[in-house]
């Protein structure tokens, strides 16, 4: 219960700071805190799959947000050396994701059950059942999601491309 309250406090404080921050780079940093805390919350709920997806997807989102903001507080010398903030964020999130999956793979039988989990089973069994559900009962949702993401990619490209002058 103490862990739950601690994660909930970090989530709420991060959310408040995100809403209160004036600078976009600062708000993106707080969004990173919120996303990482949410991934930890998912792990505490024995939802390893959701935690991994959360980390992977928001790594891409962070990189996109930080690249889209020209007014980020990155020092120029860091930009030229290739160690800018978005690269570090992206690499850190990818490493975190692999860390989560590696922990669940190595300790497949050792991870404790979540306090919320009704059925007996470990976190890796939950991962296995999620994959089974996703590729059997919810295959249609997966196809629709893939189509929507494709449309979103094309739409974002069409919106942001530079129009040639007449």
């Amino acid at each position, binding site marked *: 219960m103490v862990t739950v*309250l601690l994660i909930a406090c970090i989530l709420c404080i991060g959310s408040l700071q995100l*809403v209160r921050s004036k600078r976009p780079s600062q708000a993106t940093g707080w969004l990173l805190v919120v996303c990482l805390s949410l991934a930890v919350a*998912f792990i505490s709920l024995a939802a390893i799959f959701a935690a991994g997806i959360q980390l992977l997807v928001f790594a891409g*989102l962070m990189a*996109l947000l930080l690249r889209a903001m020209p007014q980020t507080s990155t020092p120029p010398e860091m930009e030229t050396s290739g160690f800018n903030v978005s690269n570090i964020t992206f690499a850190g999130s990818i490493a975190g994701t692999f860390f989560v999956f590696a922990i669940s793979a190595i300790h497949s039988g050792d991870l404790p059950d979540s306090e*919320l989990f009704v059925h007996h089973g470990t976190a890796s069994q939950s991962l296995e059942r999620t994959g089974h559900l996703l590729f059997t009962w919810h295959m249609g949702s997966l196809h629709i999601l893939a189509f929507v993401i494709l449309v979103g*990619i094309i739409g974002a490209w069409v*919106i942001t491309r530079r129009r040639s002058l007449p």
Partner: protein
Amino acid sequence: MTILSAWLMCAALIFSIGLYGILTHGSRLGRLLSVELMANAVHLNLVALGQHRGDETGQVMAFVGIGLTLVSISLGLALIMAIDRDPHAAQTETQSEQMP
């Protein structure tokens, strides 16, 4: 207070903070990030309720939700970038639509 109710209350609080951000934030990007915050609260709700039920349907729904949120945020960011690059374009198109 059970653990499930703690998570649900936390999600409700985050959703309210996101709603407050949408209503009060001055910048477009801030509003977009507030929408993201609200979506995060919904995903937390889905996973907590799914795990409480004892099956993984909540995780699958959260996965689909995360994907849809990512698409919406990317499109919103693209729109913000396009408007910031050429602020008169959207205005001109709106005015030309209003003209008879």
